[in-house]
């Protein structure tokens, strides 16, 4: 596809928003301003943004414990996300979810998920809804390499393939399941090898290259919308921070990490491609950097000033209706 400058800058804005959001969180958590477990998405931005650029609001995505990037890419309000992380009543989940459960079903974001693999059957169900009701919507499940060892993965992909559900499974293979290198715990070289067990199409993409992800996700999503069933898309990527904020990453090779971070940053790759093609210039990118930084500073200020939930909220939203 031919891209215009404004289109590319808009894509970049999304990736930059995710990166800066995560950098800001790293600061805030390290400074003790935000509590809870925090898993950062930095390094994987091209995947969430590349896939979600192929979706409409009516399409559903399901995410993981490392879910902030998917939320931003699917259009969830960044200020409401920040307020959620500060535990405020103005948060996306009114302060009841936190980092691992950010959701916005109106935007088609069916939630981050604290259970590894837990989101996979949920998006399979969203695809079932689309098929039963005869809409043209698709569902996308994001998950890591570690989740492909889970029973929920195998059971869901089996069902999706049996029923030709309109779903795209996106495995973000960042080389580590929590703290263990993938090759120690996954007995196949590429995750895509697993797809043959379900009779499912499978494709590998360079997860650091927006354009590669965008193109391959687009083909799979088009097939899903046409009733051609699910695809497993494996995106090779790298986690710039550790498993969570505070992880000192003793288990990873320093040179290898440096190489990914210095030479394969998806934002840098994107910017070089766009500037080399002559459709956008450095000035445009730096302007977006400034705008995103301002947005995040405002998000933090507003979140800090926002009201905390009333403690009565502990008791609400357990049920729609509960009468005894």
């Amino acid at each position: 596809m031919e891209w215009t400058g404004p289109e590319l800058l808009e894509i970049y804005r999304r990736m930059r928003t995710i990166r800066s959001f995560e950098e800001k969180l790293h600061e805030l958590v390290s400074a003790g301003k935000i509590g809870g477990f925090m898993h950062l998405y930095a390094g994987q931005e091209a995947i969430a943004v590349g896939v979600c650029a192929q979706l409409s609001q009516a399409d559903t995505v399901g995410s993981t414990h490392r879910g902030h990037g998917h939320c931003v890419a699917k259009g969830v309000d960044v200020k409401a996300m920040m307020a959620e992380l500060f535990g405020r009543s103005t948060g996306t989940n009114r302060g009841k979810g936190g980092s691992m459960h950010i959701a916005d079903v109106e935007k088609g974001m069916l939630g981050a998920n604290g259970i590894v693999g837990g989101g996979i059957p949920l998006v399979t169900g969203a695809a079932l809804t689309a098929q039963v009701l005869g809409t043209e919507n698709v569902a996308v499940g994001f998950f890591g390499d570690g989740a492909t060892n889970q029973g929920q993965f195998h059971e869901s992909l089996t069902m999706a393939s049996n029923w030709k559900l309109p779903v795209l499974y996106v495995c973000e293979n960042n080389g580590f399941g929590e703290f263990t290198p993938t090759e120690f715990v996954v007995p196949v070289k590429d995750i895509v090898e697993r797809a043959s067990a379900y009779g499912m199409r499978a494709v590998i993409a360079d997860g650091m290259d927006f354009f590669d992800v965008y193109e391959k996700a687009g083909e799979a999503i088009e097939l899903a919308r046409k009733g051609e069933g699910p695809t497993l898309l494996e995106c090779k990527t790298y986690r710039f921070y550790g498993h969570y904020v505070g992880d000192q990453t003793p288990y990873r090779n320093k040179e290898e990490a440096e190489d990914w971070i210095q030479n394969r940053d998806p934002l840098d790759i994107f910017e070089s491609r766009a500037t080399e093609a002559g459709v956008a210039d450095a000035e445009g990118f730096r302007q977006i950097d400034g705008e995103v930084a301002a947005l995040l500073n405002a998000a933090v200020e507003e979140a800090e000033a926002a009201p905390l939930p009333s403690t009565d909220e502990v008791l609400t939203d357990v049920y729609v209706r509960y009468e005894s």
Partner: protein
Amino acid sequence: MSRKLGTGGAINEAIAIAMRSDPAVILMGEDVAGGGDRSKEGTEEMGGVMGTTRGLVGEFGMNRVRDTPIAEMGLIGTAVGAAATGLRPVAELMFMDFLGTCLDPLLNQASKLRYMFGGKVKVPLTVRTVSGAGMQAAAQHSQSLYWITTGIPGLKTVIPSNPADAKGLLLASIRDDDPVIFCEPKGILNQVAEVPEGDYEIPLGKANTLREGSDVSLVAFGATVRIAMKAAKALEEAGTSAEVIDLRSLSPLDDEAILASLEKTGRMVIVDESTPRCSIARDIASICVDRGFDSLQAPVKCVTAPHTPVPFSGVLEQAFLPSAQDVLDAVGQMD
């Protein structure tokens, strides 16, 4: 108008009514349609392990009646996702013992999505599951694990004691906007009784007083209701007036009805076919002691199975299950 139906027939009728009245209702589970190719000559559909859902695929088609693989976590998890995005699935978990293979979607997803999302989603899912002992199905196909689901905030747990209640409670469960675990106790599956025709719902969270009495309250649910009724009859012959309360749902629990009955009789026996530790019986006993202490004229008695797996041999299984005699013995110990 009513006519005699078995519990399975009543359940089948409830699902069909729900599916006719709402296109978002679907049925999914292992063998619910019946396995093979229904266009193949010389084959008939199975309709689930108990034959409960036979005929539904014929009326509603394979888009809405779906055979799943024997993969409970995928089946229940997918049903949760479908419920959160616009369908109203009825998922069959063949036996409640299989909870172990699909607990995450219930424990960490269905029950909590609404709360975690700050009330911005609903999960109108019904999981139908055959529970309890009585068919010599042994230790992995006979457990009454409703105490687990009752203990999870965000889930509701419903358990009928007869065919007419099964129909009305299931219709209410399917139309409920929260996730409901609907137990189908083996002890009532073969019961045949009058079942009203047409569409009716029995509200969740309201107990049913089956028999008024003044000397002792027998609180029962599911398959133990019949035991309590039998015991009440024997007690009457011996000059003791027993009140029998059928809980119908364990969550929500009609604690007001339980306490009102205790206030009236001063004596409480709970009959529960599950094992005793962390059971519904002891939960209710604690409510009676905590909130009804002044009414108690005798210790609260729990009649339950022993704290063992369910045995196979018929004689052992009957010894495992609570009986009317156990209830009579418990009442006898109160004086």
